[in-house]
C-alpha cells in the first residue's frame, strides 16, 4: 500500500512536471497565453505528488515497513527515530527523493513569487527550464532510482545504514543544507537560460534572481561546513577536510558560486562581465549535477564499474546536455551579451573583483583537475591512481592566501579607480590589523612563513571588514549592517575566522598516541589527560568500548569505539574537549582485546577549531543580512532614462 501511494506520488510529480513543461512551451511557441496560468496548476500538482511520495517514504521508515527494499536496505527496528527520518537521504534513491522535494519547493516558491509576471517570456522560459530539470529527477525516481521497489520476501529486520551515518545528529541536517544549496542554484540557472533565450540580457534578470542565488550560496556554505564539522566529530581521525572526491564535489559549485556573487555586483554596478557571469552561473549549476554524478554513480570506485549503475550514465548525459546547451546559448547570444566599456583601473573595486574571480576560477580548475585526473587516467590506461593531499595543499595554499589578501584590500577600494594616496590611507587600518595579528601569533608560538602570513592576512581581512561595518553603522545606524554590503562584510569576517581556524589547526596541531592503564596520565602540548576507567559492553549486537578520560581543567570525556557485526572495521567515536583556544581531541585508536582494561588513546591538540564553526555561523548571518533589501542599494538600481545627446549635453 505504502509503495503504491509513494509510486503514485512520484507519478503525479512526473505528470505535473511534464504537463507543466509542455503547457508552458506551447504557450511560448504558439503564443497562447492561457497556458501560462495553467502551468502553475501543474506545478501545484507536481509539488503535491512529491510531498505524498516523501510522506509515504517517511511513514514506511518510521513504521519499519521492510517490504520496501529501500527501508530494508537502510533502516532497522532499533534505529532511533531521528535517524529513521534522516534515512530518507542516507542512500541513493532516498537522497534523490529529497532532491526532488527541495526542487519542487524552490520551483513552487519561484512560481509563486513571479506568478504575476508569468506572461513575461523571460519568466516563462525560466519556469520551463526549472520544470525540465524536475522532469529529469522525477524520471529517475520513477525508473532507475525508484525508492518504492518492493521485496517479495519481507525480512524481519533491515540491514541499517552505514554506522557512520547514524551516530551524530549533524547527519540529520548537513545533507539537507547541502542539497538546499545544490538545488537552489537551479533558479538562477533557469533565469540565466531564460535571459539567453529571450535575449533580454540586461541586468534585470540578475536583480530578480539575486535572492535565490544568495539563499543557495548560504545553504551550500553552511552545508559544507556542517559536513566538515560532522567529519571532525564522527570520523575520529582528527581532521575535517581531506580533499576526498565527495568533499571536492560540494566545494566546486561553491567556488564558482562565490565568484559569481562577487562578479555579479560588477555587472549590476557597471554593466560589465556579462558573459563571464552567465558562464559562472551555468557552470555552477552544471557542477552541482557533476558533483551528484561523481558521488552517486559509482564512478569514484572505478570508471569501469560506474556503467553498472544505471543512474551514472543518465546523470552524465544530463550533465552533457547542460554543458552543450549552455555553450550553445552563450555562443548564440555572444554579440548581444558583450559588455561595453572596460575596467578603468586595477586599483578599483571592480579590478579586484576581476582578480578575485580569476583566482576563484583557478582554484576551481585545480580542484576539478585533481578530482577527475584519476578517472581520466583509469579510463585511458586502466591504471588506478590517487591524487594525494599534497597536490591540493601545495597548489591551493598560494591561491587561498592571494584571495585573503584581495579580501582585505577590495572592500577598501572605490569603484572605477582609487588614487595611491587614498589607497594608502585606507589600507593603513587593515595593514595594522594584519601586522598586529602576525606579531600576536608569533608571540604565542606561531612559526613558519606561510602560516604566519596567512594569519596576518586573516587579521587584515578582519580589520578591513570591521572598518566597512563601522563606516556603515556610523552613516546609517544599525541599518548599516543589513543589505548586501553589510551582509557581505559579516560573511568576510566569517571567512577570516575560518581562515584562522584552518591555518592554526593545520599548522600548529600536536598529537600523541598512548597505551594507558586506568590511572595512567599522558601530556600533549601542556594538556594532561588521565585515563580513569573503561566500560566494555554490548549495545544489542554491537560491542562498545567506552573510556572515561579526564582532561585537566576541562572535565571528563568519553571517547568510544564500536564493533558492528555488519560493518567491517570498528568505528571510533571521538570526544572533544572544546575551548576558544584549542580542542583536546580524544579518540580510541584500536578496539582493546576483550577483558583487557588497557586502551590506546590518541590525543590531538587542535588550536582554534571552534573559530571555524563560529565563522560558519557568521556566514549564515551575513547571508541573512544580505537578503534584507537595503533602501540605499535599491535607490542605486533606479536608472535614469534620458537620451544620450541630452545627457552628454548636461554632463559637458
Amino acid at each position: 500500500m505504502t509503495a503504491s501511494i509513494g509510486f503514485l506520488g512520484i507519478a503525479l510529480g512526473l505528470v505535473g512536471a511534464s504537463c507543466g513543461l509542455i503547457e508552458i512551451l506551447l504557450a511560448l511557441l504558439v503564443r497562447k497565453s492561457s497556458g501560462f496560468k495553467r502551468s502553475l496548476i501543474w506545478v501545484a500538482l507536481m509539488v503535491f505528488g512529491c510531498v505524498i511520495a516523501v510522506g509515504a517514504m517517511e511513514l514506511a521508515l518510521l513504521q519499519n515497513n521492510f517490504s520496501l527494499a529501500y527501508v530494508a536496505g537502510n533502516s532497522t527496528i532499533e534505529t532511533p527515530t531521528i535517524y529513521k527520518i534522516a534515512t530518507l537521504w542516507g542512500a541513493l534513491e532516498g537522497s534523490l527523493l529529497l532532491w526532488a522535494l527541495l526542487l519542487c519547493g524552490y520551483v513552487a516558491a519561484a512560481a509563486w513569487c513571479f506568478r504575476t509576471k508569468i506572461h513575461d517570456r523571460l519568466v516563462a522560459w525560466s519556469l520551463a527550464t526549472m520544470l525540465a530539470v524536475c522532469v529529469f529527477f522525477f524520471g529517475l525516481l520513477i525508473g532507475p532510482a525508484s525508492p518504492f521497489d518492493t521485496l517479495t520476501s519481507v525480512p524481519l529486520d533491515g540491514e541499517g545504514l552505514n554506522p557512520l551515518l547514524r551516530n551524530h545528529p549533524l547527519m540529520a541536517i548537513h545533507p539537507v543544507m547541502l542539497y538546499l544549496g545544490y538545488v537552489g542554484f537551479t533558479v538562477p540557472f533557469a533565469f540565466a537560460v531564460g535571459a539567453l533565450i529571450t535575449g533580454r540580457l540586461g541586468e534585470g534578470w540578475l536583480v530578480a534572481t539575486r535572492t535565490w542565488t544568495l539563499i543557495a550560496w548560504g545553504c551550500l556554505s553552511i552545508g559544507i561546513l556542517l559536513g566538515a564539522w560532522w567529519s571532525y566529530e564522527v570520523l575520529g581521525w582528527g581532521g575535517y577536510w581531506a580533499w576526498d572526491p565527495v568533499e571536492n564535489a560540494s566545494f566546486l559549485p561553491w567556488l564558482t558560486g562565490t565568484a559569481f556573487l562577487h562578479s555579479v555586483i560588477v555587472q549590476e554596478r557597471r554593466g560589465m562581465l556579462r558573459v563571464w557571469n552567465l558562464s559562472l552561473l551555468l557552470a555552477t549549476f552544471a557542477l552541482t549535477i557533476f558533483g551528484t554524478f561523481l558521488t552517486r554513480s559509482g564512478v569514484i570506485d572505478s570508471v569501469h564499474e560506474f556503467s553498472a549503475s544505471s543512474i551514472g550514465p543518465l546523470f552524465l548525459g544530463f550533465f552533457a546536455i547542460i554543458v552543450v546547451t549552455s555553450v550553445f546559448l552563450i555562443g548564440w547570444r555572444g554579440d548581444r551579451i558583450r559588455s561595453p566599456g572596460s575596467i578603468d583601473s586595477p586599483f578599483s573595486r571592480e579590478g579586484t573583483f576581476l582578480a578575485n574571480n580569476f583566482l576563484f576560477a583557478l582554484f576551481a580548475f585545480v580542484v576539478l583537475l585533481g578530482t577527475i585526473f584519476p578517472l581520466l587516467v583509469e579510463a585511458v590506461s586502466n591504471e588506478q591512481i590517487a591524487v594525494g593531499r599534497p597536490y591540493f595543499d601545495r597548489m591551493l595554499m598560494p591561491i587561498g592566501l592571494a584571495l585573503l589578501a584581495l579580501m582585505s584590500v577590495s572592500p577598501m577600494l572605490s569603484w572605477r579607480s582609487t588614487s595611491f594616496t587614498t589607497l594608502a590611507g585606507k589600507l593603513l587600518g587593515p595593514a595594522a590589523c594584519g601586522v598586529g595579528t602576525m606579531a600576536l601569533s608569533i608571540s604565542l608560538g606561531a612559526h613558519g612563513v606561510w602560516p604566519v602570513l596567512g594569519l596576518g592576512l586573516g587579521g587584515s581581512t578582519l580589520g578591513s571588514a570591521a572598518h566597512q561595518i563601522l563606516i556603515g553603522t556610523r552613516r546609517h545606524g544599525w541599518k548599516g549592517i543589513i543589505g548586501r554590503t553589510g551582509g557581505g562584510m559579516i560573511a568576510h569576517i566569517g571567512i577570516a575566522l575560518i581562515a584562522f581556524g584552518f591555518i592554526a589547526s593545520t599548522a600548529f596541531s600536536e598529537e600523541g598516541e598512548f597505551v594507558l592503564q586506568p590511572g595512567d596520565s599522558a601530556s600533549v602540548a601542556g594538556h594532561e589527560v588521565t585515563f580513569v576507567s573503561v566500560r566494555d559492553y554490548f549495545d544489542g549486537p554491537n560491542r562498545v568500548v567506552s573510556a572515561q578520560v579526564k582532561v585537566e581543567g576541562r572535565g571528563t570525556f568519553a571517547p568510544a569505539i564500536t564493533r558492528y557485526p555488519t560493518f567491517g572495521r570498528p568505528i571510533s567515536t571521538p570526544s572533544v574537549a572544546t575551548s576558544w583556544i584549542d580542542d583536546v581531541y580524544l579518540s580510541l585508536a584500536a578496539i582493546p582485546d576483550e577483558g583487557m582494561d588497557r586502551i590506546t588513546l590518541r590525543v590531538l591538540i587542535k588550536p582554534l577549531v571552534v573559530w571555524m564553526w563560529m565563522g560558519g555561523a557568521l556566514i549564515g548571518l551575513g547571508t541573512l543580512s544580505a537578503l534584507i533589501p537595503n533602501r540605499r542599494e535599491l535607490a542605486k538600481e533606479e536608472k535614469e532614462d534620458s537620451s544620450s545627446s541630452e545627457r552628454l549635453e548636461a554632463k559637458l
Partner: protein
Amino acid sequence: MTASGRRIDQLARLEEERSFLLNSLDDLDVEIRNGDLDEHEYVTIRNDYIARVAAVSKRIGEGVETLDAAAAPQKSRLIYLGLIITLGVMAGVFVAQYSGLRQPGETITGEIEKSPRALLAEAENFFLQGEFDSSRLVVEEILRDTPDSFGALLLSARLHEEAQEILEAIRQLDQILENDVNNLDALTLRGWILVRIDSPELLEEGVRNLDRVIKNKPKKFDAYVFRGYVARYVEKDLERAVLMYETALSLDPPPAMADQLRLFVTEMNDEVGMRD
C-alpha cells in the same frame, strides 16, 4: 562578414560604449553623493570619462566610412590564451607529480591522516576478513614509516605465513625478538611456525619458544592451544595436551574455538580413560 558590415558593427559598439560611459558618469554622481569617492577621485575620474565620451562621440560623428574595418587586435587574446595554457600545463605537471597508485580502501583524491595504530587496526581488519593483499599493502605502508613497529612486523609475519613464505615470516619475528627478546606474541607465532616444519631440530626450537611463552603465564590462549597441539600429536602426551587446552579454555577464546577445544578435551579424556 563584409567590410561594410564590420564597420556598422563597430559603429554599434561605439554607440554602446558611449552609452556605457554616460551611465558611468551618472553613477559617479550617485557615488560622490553617497561618499564612496573623495573629491579628488571624483574630479579625476569625471574628467577622464568626459574626455572618453568626447573622443567616442567624435569618432561616431566622423561617420561610418572613416572607421577601421580591420579586425580588433588579437594581442590581448593571445596573452590570455598563453596564460591559460601555462597554468594548465603547470597544474598538469603538479597533479602528475602528486599522484600515485591507489591503495586498497584509498579514495581517488585526498587522504585522511591515520596514525600507525589506526593503520594497523585497518590492516588487522583486512587480515581477519581474509583480504590478505590489502592487509599486506597497509602493513608495508606502516613499516615504511615505522620499520620497527612490533604490531606491523607481527602482522607481516602472519601474512607471510599465510602465503607459505616461512623464511620471511621467521625473519620478521626475529626482527621483533632482536629488540624485545621476551615478546610473547612473536615467540608464540615463531614457535607455532617451527613446530609444523618437518624437521626434528626446528621442532625442538619451536617447542622451546612455546614453553618460554607459557612459562610467562600469558593472558592470551593461543600459546596454550599450540602447545597442546604439539603435546597431543607430536609428543603423544595427552595429559599435558588436556591441561594446555583447559588452560586455553579458561582464557576465554572465541566461541567457535572454545567448542572445538572442548571437543578435543572430551576426545582425549575418553582416549586416556580407554587406555587406563
